[in-house]
């Protein structure tokens, strides 16, 4: 398969063939056919994931002093002289070495309240402040794109995450036992729900997704029986680390399976819970990051050739205090690390600036200082990779964010 044409190369080619200005308006359709294949996945890590554990700044001379026993020294997987990845992030590390993963080590939403729930709201609504929007930015991005091309979105998990809630209809799926195609009940209920604005569309989409799931999850190791043991949306329910990793891997692979189906979703969101590490942080994040790594590895393997059309963004609502607290953990902070992954990614170093951990550089003498607005990161991916135009990004997808520049050069 040929590399996808970017809008720029299509336009350049059109110019080269001496096409008239009038026709130059048309290549947008040609460009769209390349855009049609683009895929974007957002992974929300809930609880305030500690950026300094995800990507320890091993080259920062203040890191060890601030973190004490929590500092990851020899065990971390080096990226360059300045940063490394947590030892459990082996798949992410391999992707980074192949130029398919980058870190943004000091990103934050505009929210500074250090409340999980406010910060998650702001992260997912894409608004400048809490309680100013009720739909999710990813939903509004889908809505915007749907004016130009068919874009379907899927969330993985038993409950619908705010990031994908809104006017654009979206599907949701979690591992389960499938629908009996012979039963009358689904069609009787669709009839009973015909005037129900909540249940009618939800059931219709749920049934359509179930039908697709039969193919999407076929051939996974362990099969559907294994899948039922993963509690979707959270870390896998089985405690054994190996089983947990397998279930997480399968969750990622089945998400990829959906995205490879004909007519399958091109945009998806998945949540991982449990990153709030006030105490016993080392052990807790060991497990959570192993699951995260397995999900991402499952996505990459499951997407196969489509991986090169894909960008995955991993983000959390806030980072944690730069200093360890008194209980082997860290408290709510500000900036954290986001991960960018995918075959469509342009190789490069860190995204955004590193503020350092010098005392005077810490935010409120406590947290990693934000140098990059999370919305700029999302906007960069939506603009360069998914083809959302700047005006829509500034007004609709991230309302009132005109001053927040999309990060460029990611794709």
């Amino acid at each position, binding site marked *: 398969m040929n590399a996808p044409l970017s809008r720029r190369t299509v336009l350049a080619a059109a110019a080269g063939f001496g096409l008239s200005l009038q026709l130059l308006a048309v290549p947008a359709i040609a460009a769209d056919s390349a855009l049609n294949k683009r895929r974007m996945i957002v992974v929300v890590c809930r609880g305030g994931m500690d950026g300094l554990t995800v990507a320890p700044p091993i080259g920062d001379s203040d890191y060890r002093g601030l973190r004490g026993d929590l500092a990851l020294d020899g065990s971390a997987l080096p990226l360059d002289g300045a940063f490394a990845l947590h030892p459990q992030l082996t798949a992410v590390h391999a992707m980074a070495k192949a130029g398919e993963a980058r870190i943004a080590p000091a990103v934050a939403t505009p929210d500074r309240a250090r*409340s999980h729930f406010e910060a998650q709201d702001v992260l997912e609504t894409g608004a400048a402040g809490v309680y100013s929007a009720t739909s999710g930015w990813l939903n509004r991005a889908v809505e915007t794109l749907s004016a130009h091309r068919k874009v379907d979105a899927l969330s993985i998990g038993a409950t*619908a995450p705010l990031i994908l809630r809104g006017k654009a209809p979206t599907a*949701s799926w*979690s591992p389960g036992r499938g629908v009996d195609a012979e039963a009358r009940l689904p069609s009787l209920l669709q009839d009973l729900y015909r005037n129900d604005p909540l*249940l009618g569309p*939800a059931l219709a989409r749920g049934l359509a*997704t179930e039908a697709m799931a039969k193919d999407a999850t076929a051939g996974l190791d362990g099969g559907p029986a294994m899948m039922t043991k993963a509690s979707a949306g959270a870390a896998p329910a089985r405690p054994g680390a190996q089983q947990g990793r397998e279930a997480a891997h399968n969750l990622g692979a089945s998400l990829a399976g959906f995205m490879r189906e004909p007519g399958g979703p091109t945009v998806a969101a998945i949540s991982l819970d449990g990153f709030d590490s006030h105490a016993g942080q080392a052990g807790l994040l060991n497990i959570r990051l192993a699951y995260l790594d397995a999900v991402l590895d499952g996505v990459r393997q499951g997407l196969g050739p489509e991986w090169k059309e894909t960008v995955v963004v991993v983000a959390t609502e806030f980072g944690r205090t730069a200093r360890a607290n*008194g209980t082997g953990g860290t*408290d709510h902070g500000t900036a954290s690390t986001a991960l960018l992954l995918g075959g469509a990614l342009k190789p490069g170093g860190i995204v955004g600036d590193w503020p350092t951990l010098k005392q005077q550089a810490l935010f409120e003498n406590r947290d990693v200082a934000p140098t990059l607005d999370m919305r700029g990161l999302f906007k960069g991916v939506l603009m360069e990779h998914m083809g959302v135009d700047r005006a829509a990004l500034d007004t609709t997808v991230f309302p009132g964010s005109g001053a927040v520049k999309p990060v460029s050069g990611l794709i």
Partner: protein
Amino acid sequence: MGLADQDMRAAIAATRFGLGAKPGEIAAARRDPQGFLTGQIRRQGADQPAGPPAATTQRMAEFRDYQRQQRQARLEKAADGRPPASAPGTTDGAGAAMADTSAQTAVRDPVKIVGAMLRQDISSDFTARTQLAATTDAAFRERWALFWANHFTVSATKAITGTVVGPFEQEAIRPNVFGRFEDLLDAAESHPAMLTYLDQIQSIGPDSPAAQFARRGGGFGGRLQPVANRTVGLNENLAREIMELHTVGVNGGYTQADVTEFARAMTGLSIGGERDGAFGVAIFRERAHEPGERTVMGVRYGQSGRAQTNAILTDLAAKPQTARFVCTKIARHFVADDPPPALVARLETAWTASRGDLAKVAEALVSAPEAWAPAPQKFKTPYEFIVSSYRAAGGQPAGFPQFGPILTALGQKPFSAPSPKGWPEDAQSWAAPDAIVKRMQFAQAFSAAAARDRDPKALAAEALGARLSPETATAIARAESRAEGFALLLMSPEFQRR
């Protein structure tokens, strides 16, 4: 919108304020629907689930033994040169748990035996609570208790708290839900389960004698897992969540500095270890308390020791922001995701006039006209849906396997709220396409077992009364089997809401 007639009010009393109607319940409420509810309010609090009361101290001792055995087993295996076993229950105890109630798994390994016992404890606590909800005649009282259990969430997502969620509800929540908010607040925040869940037990005043001793190389006695030579200090988790989630709310006007000051004041609140002779009991460690005066939300607290925390909690409970925040939550839980401001105002007035008497607030709720609007605004949570299904069938779950796994599949894993904020309230969270399909699958399986020789038309009339729509009644009447008719009832738009 006019007042609903008496039949409609009876149906609303049982379904919106209660947990779904049992056969005969709507008829019992018909004479005086509001009185049917106020009659359930009582000073001594909510009902306790059947069975021997589960004691926190005993559960904590069992968990300690379990951890010891795990450590021992790991050491032995390491000595054998085999790779150490992974540690079940270290992060997600309850979850693991409920996946297999494993009386049958590997019977000889002592670690597994104790682990199975702990899981058994958790699932039997949850089963007893669900059986109470499915069968009680005072379902408004139970819903009121469940509201407060969710307001003061302790979750089994942390392994060590898994076995004490049930005891926490029984000891701290249920006895206090019709008393003063201040007393409920104190009972919840100082319970060993909450102190553990929100990391308070390890929080130590940086300038306290205990911290100074630890810095000189001494250990700090009394924690569940003493670790030598570790840094000791503040943990602000509980202080923040008390302000943000339990009292004044996130817009309540506090700052990061208030959180930190409150955390300093609370140092010393902990639970006893073996050396204290009070294992698993909430105690106050003077030696871990940060000495000195504290300032929280502009008020100076010069008290020493535990009295400082008490004074701050008392002031937080009395703040108007707390009345506003908590009354809004009550209205949202009982009436609508976006509750009528007039209703919130009524609740606040009752709260303020009675100085946080929760019995008076409950009375204000059931006497508020806004709460009786005929159109149902609330989409049932998975637990409400499952409990009301049992009530509609006039039955109760025989055991955990009948209803535990489906709750997990629907996103509401037993005793495992995803965060200290508790379970979400809004329809958007629970009505995802996948969840509707899974509810339908549950309704199919449940009806096949429950509706064998019953008349689904009669069950629908008992379960919904005047709320049963002609469309649903017709669909049930046309069903090709009793099971299909009952499943249509459970999945009908009006049964899915309350």
